Protein backbone atom coordinates (compact mmCIF):
# COMPACT_ATOMS: atom_id res chain seq x y z
CA UNK A 1 0.00 0.00 0.00
CA UNK A 2 1.99 2.98 -1.26
CA UNK A 3 1.58 6.28 0.60
CA UNK A 4 1.41 9.07 -1.93
CA UNK A 5 3.24 12.31 -1.23
CA UNK A 6 1.40 14.97 0.75
CA UNK A 7 1.49 18.63 -0.27
CA UNK A 8 2.61 21.24 2.27
CA UNK A 9 0.04 23.25 4.22
CA UNK A 10 0.50 26.33 2.04
CA UNK A 11 -0.70 24.45 -1.04
CA UNK A 12 -4.08 23.96 0.65
CA UNK A 13 -4.19 27.58 1.79
CA UNK A 14 -3.34 28.97 -1.64
CA UNK A 15 -6.00 26.79 -3.28
CA UNK A 16 -8.49 27.85 -0.62
CA UNK A 17 -7.77 31.49 -1.43
CA UNK A 18 -8.00 30.80 -5.17
CA UNK A 19 -11.41 29.19 -4.67
CA UNK A 20 -12.68 32.30 -2.89
CA UNK A 21 -11.29 34.57 -5.60
CA UNK A 22 -12.82 32.47 -8.39
CA UNK A 23 -16.16 32.49 -6.56
CA UNK A 24 -16.05 36.28 -6.34
CA UNK A 25 -15.25 36.42 -10.06
CA UNK A 26 -18.16 34.08 -10.84
CA UNK A 27 -20.52 36.18 -8.78
CA UNK A 28 -19.17 39.33 -10.46
CA UNK A 29 -20.09 37.94 -13.89
CA UNK A 30 -23.71 37.91 -12.76
CA UNK A 31 -23.58 41.14 -10.73
CA UNK A 32 -21.96 43.15 -13.54
CA UNK A 33 -24.61 41.85 -15.91
CA UNK A 34 -22.57 40.41 -18.74
CA UNK A 35 -24.56 38.73 -21.47
CA UNK A 36 -24.23 36.21 -24.24
CA UNK A 37 -21.23 34.05 -25.06
CA UNK A 38 -18.84 36.02 -22.85
CA UNK A 39 -21.02 35.39 -19.80
CA UNK A 40 -21.31 31.65 -20.52
CA UNK A 41 -17.61 31.34 -21.32
CA UNK A 42 -16.55 33.03 -18.08
CA UNK A 43 -19.04 31.12 -15.92
CA UNK A 44 -17.90 27.81 -17.39
CA UNK A 45 -14.21 28.69 -17.20
CA UNK A 46 -14.39 29.72 -13.53
CA UNK A 47 -16.47 26.63 -12.74
CA UNK A 48 -13.94 24.30 -14.37
CA UNK A 49 -11.03 26.03 -12.64
CA UNK A 50 -12.70 25.68 -9.24
CA UNK A 51 -13.62 22.06 -9.93
CA UNK A 52 -10.10 21.32 -11.14
CA UNK A 53 -8.47 22.84 -8.07
CA UNK A 54 -10.78 20.98 -5.69
CA UNK A 55 -10.16 17.65 -7.43
CA UNK A 56 -6.43 18.08 -7.91
CA UNK A 57 -5.44 19.47 -4.49
CA UNK A 58 -8.21 18.97 -1.94
CA UNK A 59 -9.13 15.53 -3.27
CA UNK A 60 -5.45 14.80 -3.83
CA UNK A 61 -5.76 13.58 -7.43
CA UNK A 62 -2.62 15.45 -8.50
CA UNK A 63 -0.57 13.09 -6.32
CA UNK A 64 -2.40 9.87 -7.08
CA UNK A 65 -1.52 7.32 -9.71
CA UNK A 66 -3.03 7.74 -13.18
CA UNK A 67 -5.14 4.60 -12.74
CA UNK A 68 -7.50 6.27 -10.25
CA UNK A 69 -7.43 9.61 -12.06
CA UNK A 70 -8.55 7.98 -15.30
CA UNK A 71 -11.17 5.88 -13.48
CA UNK A 72 -12.66 8.99 -11.89
CA UNK A 73 -12.45 11.45 -14.78
CA UNK A 74 -13.02 9.41 -17.92
CA UNK A 75 -16.62 8.22 -17.36
CA UNK A 76 -17.92 11.71 -16.49
CA UNK A 77 -15.99 12.98 -19.48
CA UNK A 78 -17.94 10.56 -21.65
CA UNK A 79 -21.12 12.00 -20.11
CA UNK A 80 -20.29 15.24 -21.90
CA UNK A 81 -21.24 13.34 -25.05
CA UNK A 82 -24.61 12.56 -23.48
CA UNK A 83 -25.01 16.24 -22.63
CA UNK A 84 -24.27 17.23 -26.22
CA UNK A 85 -26.80 14.73 -27.55
CA UNK A 86 -29.43 15.92 -25.08
CA UNK A 87 -28.78 19.54 -26.05
CA UNK A 88 -29.40 18.67 -29.69
CA UNK A 89 -32.56 16.77 -28.83
CA UNK A 90 -33.87 19.53 -26.57
CA UNK A 91 -33.48 22.11 -29.31
CA UNK A 92 -35.44 19.83 -31.60
CA UNK A 93 -38.13 19.44 -28.92
CA UNK A 94 -38.36 23.21 -28.62
CA UNK A 95 -38.70 23.65 -32.36
CA UNK A 96 -41.38 20.95 -32.48
CA UNK A 97 -43.34 22.60 -29.67
CA UNK A 98 -43.09 26.01 -31.28
CA UNK A 99 -44.19 24.77 -34.69
CA UNK A 100 -47.04 22.55 -33.44
CA UNK A 101 -48.47 24.65 -30.59
CA UNK A 102 -47.64 28.17 -31.59
CA UNK A 103 -47.84 28.48 -35.33
Amino acid at each position, binding site marked *: *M*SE*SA*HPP*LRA*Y*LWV*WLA*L*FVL*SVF*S*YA*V*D*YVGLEGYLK*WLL*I*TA*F*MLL*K*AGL*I*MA*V*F*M*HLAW*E*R*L*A*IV*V*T*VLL*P*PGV*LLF*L*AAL*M*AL*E*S*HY*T*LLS*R*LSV*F*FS
Partner: protein
Amino acid sequence: MSDSQGSPSRLAGVGRDLVADWAADRRVFAMPWDKAMIWLFILSDVFIFACFLVGYMALRIAATEPWPDAGEVFALHLGGEAVPLLLIAIMTFVLISSSGTMALAVKSAHAGRRGATALLLGVTALLGLTFVGMQAFEWTKLIEEGVRPWGNPWGAAQFGASFFLITGFHGTHVSIGVLFLVIMTIKAWRGSLGERRPGFMTRRRGRYAMVESLGLYWHFVDLVWVFIFAFFYLW
Protein backbone atom coordinates in the same frame (compact mmCIF):
# COMPACT_ATOMS: atom_id res chain seq x y z
CA MET B 1 7.48 1.28 -9.72
CA SER B 2 8.93 4.74 -9.13
CA ASP B 3 9.93 6.88 -12.08
CA SER B 4 12.63 9.49 -11.82
CA GLN B 5 12.88 10.42 -15.47
CA GLY B 6 13.07 13.88 -17.02
CA SER B 7 10.06 15.66 -18.52
CA PRO B 8 10.02 14.19 -22.07
CA SER B 9 9.76 10.61 -20.92
CA ARG B 10 7.64 11.34 -17.84
CA LEU B 11 4.43 11.08 -19.83
CA ALA B 12 5.59 7.77 -21.26
CA GLY B 13 6.47 6.64 -17.74
CA VAL B 14 3.07 7.62 -16.38
CA GLY B 15 1.42 5.87 -19.31
CA ARG B 16 3.43 2.73 -18.60
CA ASP B 17 2.36 2.92 -14.95
CA LEU B 18 -1.28 3.16 -16.01
CA VAL B 19 -1.00 0.10 -18.22
CA ALA B 20 0.99 -1.78 -15.58
CA ASP B 21 -1.54 -1.00 -12.83
CA TRP B 22 -4.42 -2.35 -14.89
CA ALA B 23 -2.55 -5.21 -16.54
CA ALA B 24 -0.70 -6.78 -13.65
CA ASP B 25 -2.32 -9.66 -11.78
CA ARG B 26 -2.72 -7.67 -8.57
CA ARG B 27 -4.77 -4.92 -6.93
CA VAL B 28 -5.18 -1.99 -9.32
CA PHE B 29 -5.53 1.02 -7.05
CA ALA B 30 -2.49 1.70 -4.90
CA MET B 31 -4.44 3.07 -1.94
CA PRO B 32 -6.33 1.78 1.12
CA TRP B 33 -9.50 -0.12 0.29
CA ASP B 34 -11.91 2.37 1.83
CA LYS B 35 -10.38 5.24 -0.08
CA ALA B 36 -10.73 3.41 -3.40
CA MET B 37 -14.32 2.48 -2.57
CA ILE B 38 -15.23 6.03 -1.64
CA TRP B 39 -13.90 7.16 -5.02
CA LEU B 40 -16.08 4.60 -6.80
CA PHE B 41 -19.07 5.68 -4.76
CA ILE B 42 -18.34 9.30 -5.67
CA LEU B 43 -18.18 8.26 -9.32
CA SER B 44 -21.64 6.73 -9.08
CA ASP B 45 -22.96 9.85 -7.35
CA VAL B 46 -21.42 12.01 -10.08
CA PHE B 47 -23.53 10.03 -12.56
CA ILE B 48 -26.68 10.73 -10.53
CA PHE B 49 -26.06 14.47 -10.39
CA ALA B 50 -24.99 14.52 -14.04
CA CYS B 51 -28.37 12.99 -14.93
CA PHE B 52 -30.15 15.68 -12.95
CA LEU B 53 -28.12 18.51 -14.44
CA VAL B 54 -28.43 17.20 -18.01
CA GLY B 55 -32.16 16.74 -17.40
CA TYR B 56 -32.39 20.31 -16.14
CA MET B 57 -30.57 21.47 -19.27
CA ALA B 58 -33.00 19.54 -21.46
CA LEU B 59 -36.01 20.99 -19.62
CA ARG B 60 -34.70 24.52 -19.83
CA ILE B 61 -33.75 24.42 -23.50
CA ALA B 62 -37.09 22.93 -24.51
CA ALA B 63 -39.23 25.21 -22.34
CA THR B 64 -41.37 27.46 -24.49
CA GLU B 65 -41.95 29.98 -21.70
CA PRO B 66 -39.06 32.19 -20.56
CA TRP B 67 -37.02 30.81 -17.67
CA PRO B 68 -37.24 32.86 -14.44
CA ASP B 69 -34.24 35.10 -13.86
CA ALA B 70 -32.27 33.43 -11.06
CA GLY B 71 -30.66 36.74 -10.12
CA GLU B 72 -34.07 38.20 -9.30
CA VAL B 73 -35.64 35.06 -7.86
CA PHE B 74 -32.80 34.49 -5.40
CA ALA B 75 -32.19 38.12 -4.51
CA LEU B 76 -32.20 39.28 -0.92
CA HIS B 77 -33.62 42.67 -0.09
CA LEU B 78 -31.29 44.71 2.10
CA GLY B 79 -32.28 48.26 2.98
CA GLY B 80 -34.69 48.53 0.09
CA GLU B 81 -32.11 47.34 -2.47
CA ALA B 82 -32.40 43.97 -4.15
CA VAL B 83 -29.00 42.29 -4.02
CA PRO B 84 -28.99 39.49 -6.60
CA LEU B 85 -27.96 36.03 -5.48
CA LEU B 86 -26.68 37.31 -2.14
CA LEU B 87 -27.77 34.27 -0.17
CA ILE B 88 -26.31 31.95 -2.80
CA ALA B 89 -23.00 33.81 -2.69
CA ILE B 90 -22.92 33.42 1.10
CA MET B 91 -23.78 29.73 0.78
CA THR B 92 -20.92 29.26 -1.68
CA PHE B 93 -18.59 31.08 0.71
CA VAL B 94 -19.70 28.83 3.59
CA LEU B 95 -19.23 25.62 1.62
CA ILE B 96 -15.78 26.61 0.33
CA SER B 97 -14.77 27.49 3.88
CA SER B 98 -15.95 24.06 5.00
CA SER B 99 -13.85 22.44 2.27
CA GLY B 100 -10.85 24.36 3.55
CA THR B 101 -11.38 23.28 7.15
CA MET B 102 -11.95 19.71 5.93
CA ALA B 103 -8.62 19.74 4.08
CA LEU B 104 -6.92 21.02 7.22
CA ALA B 105 -8.68 18.29 9.25
CA VAL B 106 -7.31 15.62 6.93
CA LYS B 107 -3.84 17.11 7.26
CA SER B 108 -4.15 17.07 11.08
CA ALA B 109 -5.38 13.50 10.94
CA HIS B 110 -2.35 12.39 8.96
CA ALA B 111 -0.18 14.00 11.64
CA GLY B 112 -2.18 12.11 14.28
CA ARG B 113 -3.17 15.29 16.10
CA ARG B 114 -6.32 14.39 18.04
CA GLY B 115 -7.45 17.83 19.21
CA ALA B 116 -6.86 19.71 15.96
CA THR B 117 -8.57 16.97 13.94
CA ALA B 118 -11.64 16.97 16.18
CA LEU B 119 -11.85 20.77 16.21
CA LEU B 120 -11.54 21.11 12.44
CA LEU B 121 -14.04 18.32 11.81
CA GLY B 122 -16.46 20.03 14.19
CA VAL B 123 -16.08 23.38 12.43
CA THR B 124 -16.65 21.67 9.07
CA ALA B 125 -19.83 20.09 10.41
CA LEU B 126 -21.06 23.46 11.71
CA LEU B 127 -20.40 25.13 8.36
CA GLY B 128 -22.23 22.30 6.59
CA LEU B 129 -25.16 22.71 8.95
CA THR B 130 -25.17 26.45 8.25
CA PHE B 131 -25.34 25.71 4.54
CA VAL B 132 -28.30 23.37 5.00
CA GLY B 133 -30.02 25.96 7.16
CA MET B 134 -29.65 28.60 4.49
CA GLN B 135 -30.91 26.21 1.82
CA ALA B 136 -33.93 25.42 4.01
CA PHE B 137 -34.55 29.16 4.36
CA GLU B 138 -34.32 29.51 0.57
CA TRP B 139 -36.86 26.73 0.08
CA THR B 140 -39.26 28.26 2.62
CA LYS B 141 -39.00 31.66 0.99
CA LEU B 142 -39.62 30.31 -2.51
CA ILE B 143 -42.52 28.09 -1.43
CA GLU B 144 -44.10 31.07 0.30
CA GLU B 145 -43.72 33.05 -2.93
CA GLY B 146 -45.62 30.35 -4.80
CA VAL B 147 -42.95 28.17 -6.36
CA ARG B 148 -44.14 24.59 -6.87
CA PRO B 149 -42.72 21.70 -8.89
CA TRP B 150 -45.58 22.32 -11.34
CA GLY B 151 -45.51 26.10 -11.57
CA ASN B 152 -44.32 29.48 -10.32
CA PRO B 153 -45.35 33.14 -10.69
CA TRP B 154 -42.45 34.15 -12.91
CA GLY B 155 -41.99 31.87 -15.89
CA ALA B 156 -41.51 28.32 -17.13
CA ALA B 157 -43.24 25.78 -14.89
CA GLN B 158 -40.25 23.43 -15.02
CA PHE B 159 -38.16 25.85 -12.95
CA GLY B 160 -39.57 24.68 -9.63
CA ALA B 161 -39.24 21.00 -10.47
CA SER B 162 -35.58 21.45 -11.44
CA PHE B 163 -34.81 23.63 -8.44
CA PHE B 164 -36.36 21.39 -5.80
CA LEU B 165 -34.95 18.18 -7.28
CA ILE B 166 -31.37 19.37 -7.71
CA THR B 167 -31.03 21.41 -4.53
CA GLY B 168 -33.01 18.80 -2.60
CA PHE B 169 -30.67 15.99 -3.55
CA HIS B 170 -27.64 18.18 -2.93
CA GLY B 171 -28.96 19.37 0.43
CA THR B 172 -29.63 15.77 1.43
CA HIS B 173 -26.06 14.85 0.55
CA VAL B 174 -24.79 17.77 2.64
CA SER B 175 -26.98 16.69 5.57
CA ILE B 176 -25.71 13.11 5.44
CA GLY B 177 -22.18 14.52 5.26
CA VAL B 178 -22.84 16.63 8.36
CA LEU B 179 -24.08 13.52 10.19
CA PHE B 180 -20.92 11.60 9.36
CA LEU B 181 -18.80 14.63 10.23
CA VAL B 182 -20.39 14.78 13.68
CA ILE B 183 -19.77 11.06 14.18
CA MET B 184 -16.15 11.45 13.06
CA THR B 185 -15.68 14.52 15.29
CA ILE B 186 -16.79 12.50 18.31
CA LYS B 187 -14.57 9.57 17.32
CA ALA B 188 -11.59 11.88 16.89
CA TRP B 189 -12.25 13.72 20.15
CA ARG B 190 -12.61 10.49 22.16
CA GLY B 191 -9.36 9.20 20.70
CA SER B 192 -11.06 6.28 18.94
CA LEU B 193 -9.12 7.01 15.75
CA GLY B 194 -5.72 7.02 17.39
CA GLU B 195 -6.41 4.06 19.67
CA ARG B 196 -8.07 2.12 16.84
CA ARG B 197 -11.25 1.35 18.77
CA PRO B 198 -14.08 -0.46 16.93
CA GLY B 199 -16.91 1.79 15.75
CA PHE B 200 -20.55 1.44 16.92
CA MET B 201 -22.05 0.91 13.47
CA THR B 202 -19.74 -1.42 11.58
CA ARG B 203 -17.36 -2.48 14.36
CA ARG B 204 -14.47 -1.59 12.07
CA ARG B 205 -11.43 -0.24 13.86
CA GLY B 206 -10.99 3.52 13.81
CA ARG B 207 -8.07 4.88 11.81
CA TYR B 208 -7.05 8.44 11.12
CA ALA B 209 -7.17 7.49 7.41
CA MET B 210 -10.97 7.42 7.77
CA VAL B 211 -10.87 11.21 7.94
CA GLU B 212 -9.37 11.29 4.45
CA SER B 213 -12.19 9.15 3.03
CA LEU B 214 -14.77 11.40 4.68
CA GLY B 215 -12.86 14.36 3.27
CA LEU B 216 -13.24 12.97 -0.24
CA TYR B 217 -17.02 12.77 0.23
CA TRP B 218 -17.17 16.30 1.59
CA HIS B 219 -15.11 17.74 -1.26
CA PHE B 220 -17.41 15.91 -3.68
CA VAL B 221 -20.40 17.69 -2.07
CA ASP B 222 -18.60 21.02 -2.56
CA LEU B 223 -17.75 20.04 -6.14
CA VAL B 224 -21.40 19.37 -6.96
CA TRP B 225 -22.30 22.78 -5.54
CA VAL B 226 -19.70 24.40 -7.83
CA PHE B 227 -21.57 22.93 -10.81
CA ILE B 228 -25.03 23.73 -9.45
CA PHE B 229 -23.96 27.29 -8.65
CA ALA B 230 -22.71 27.78 -12.21
CA PHE B 231 -25.43 25.97 -14.15
CA PHE B 232 -28.53 26.74 -12.14
CA TYR B 233 -27.95 30.10 -10.48
CA LEU B 234 -25.55 31.91 -12.77
CA TRP B 235 -26.27 30.58 -16.24
